[in-house]
């Protein structure tokens, strides 16, 4: 089992969700996050004074998939979240030691 985590542009969330569903992913967890990368921040002006906003709003998407489905999930995210402009985000894959479905107590791959 793998955890696929992506940080994406907030307005791309709907596209990513649809692409993951099409790829057969059955569950997604979404968190509103802030951060900075190469895109940097932006400035806001209040009463003529500029403020630097370093942390931009992004959305973090997390899905858990079987090893065999990892490439499909990653490809779904990358193709749907891409705008080809700076700040599109990143996707990374980590291995999960164990997984438990709370309702039934099933463990491992059965709980995906």
């Amino acid at each position, binding site marked *: 089992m793998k955890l696929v985590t992506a940080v994406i542009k907030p307005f791309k969330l709907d596209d990513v969700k649809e692409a993951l569903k099409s790829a057969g992913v059955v569950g997604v967890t979404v968190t509103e996050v802030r951060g900075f990368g190469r895109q940097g921040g932006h400035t*806001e*002006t*209040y009463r003529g004074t500029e403020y630097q906003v370093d942390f931009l709003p992004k959305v973090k998407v997390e899905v858990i998939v079987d090893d065999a489905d990892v490439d499909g999930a990653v490809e779904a995210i990358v193709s749907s979240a891409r705008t080809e402009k700076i700040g599109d985000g990143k996707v990374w894959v980590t291995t999960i030691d164990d997984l438990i479905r709370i309702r039934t107590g099933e463990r491992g791959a059965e709980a995906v």
Partner: protein
Amino acid sequence: MNTGDAAWVLVSSAMVLFMTPGLAFFYGGMDRSRNVLNMLMMNFWCLLIIPILWVVVGYSIAGGNFDAAFFGGFGAAFLKGIGLEGEGAKQLLTIAFLGMFAVITPALISGAVAGRMKFTAWAIFAPVWMLLVFAPVFKWVYGGWLGVRGSLDFAGGTAIHVNAGIAALVAVLILGKRRGWPQEGSPPHSMPLVMIGTGILWFGWFGFNAGSALGANGQAVQAFMNTFLAAAAGGLAWVLVERVRDGHPTNLGAASGIVAGLVAVTPACGYVSSMSSIWIGLAAGVVCSYAVRIKFKGGFDDALDVVGVHFVGGLVGSLMIGLFADSSHFGAEHLDGLFYGGGFKLLLEQAIANGVTIIYSAIVTALILLAIKATVGLRVSDDEELTGLDSVEHGETAYHFGEVTMGRG
């Protein structure tokens, strides 16, 4: 008592009361989210303590003996002898109307001291300042020696905005900067709250200015019109400056310009014609949009720009009476401005009245604050400042996100 006059002043009084919550939202939205409830409570505190203090002794000092030059005395303390017969009801209504002004004047200062003042210190300062600074200056300007000399202040430019504005400057000098200022920025935490507050202030200001005619008459109508125009002109001017200077027309610029225009037309609205009020609003918008930057050069942490908007805006409006006052337009007898054949006499009197107010208010405000500093202290600790005043001073949180449940301690 004329029923039309009574009806208008009654409604105006309620409108002026509404301005203090409006000011609280205007300031509260500009403050940090961890201090917004403290800002609201500093303003609402004035609504709790000042009305009572006003009828106990405040009104008596400010207006009790109308012929007094300096001090109204204690003859009207506890509203002694003021009934409903004859002119009694009219006097009682005037006391209520002016009481609303006594509430909001110290409340104006709260924006400067945001984010680091002990609530106990504010709770003592606001009422004491109302008694020792607002009430005497009000007396001098209205029926007292400054008014008799010929200076004009229709609804409180000198007595309210310049007076509270200079007190705000003294207060931040004694209180000191917030931690991290000016390197660390604290932009407004809720611009929609600022805009709601601005709308409430503009609405209430019609009562503040047009109600100051103390009757439903032509002067009230002109003051109403001037309040309408100067606010629009102030907002327009500020936003245009921003578009050219900073690139974006901002909500905060519009709100600040509206308030600057309202502040500036306050002393003038019963003495100038409609076109003059547009010039006053435009001037206030431009001047104040630059005046809010002085604090960075001067190194004083006037958190929400009470000096840049109220002190400077009040001065602009008050001095422009010396240019635009037009007694014949109102069929009244007072000095005329420079542009209406009055020469420099009125301009000089305006400068004297504001100069005296600035000196007196600065000295007495400093004495009050130094006395509080030496006893209960003025500032919260550094830890408390970082934690936020809402939680430390009031045991409350402004914004609970998601489903928050609390055990019954």
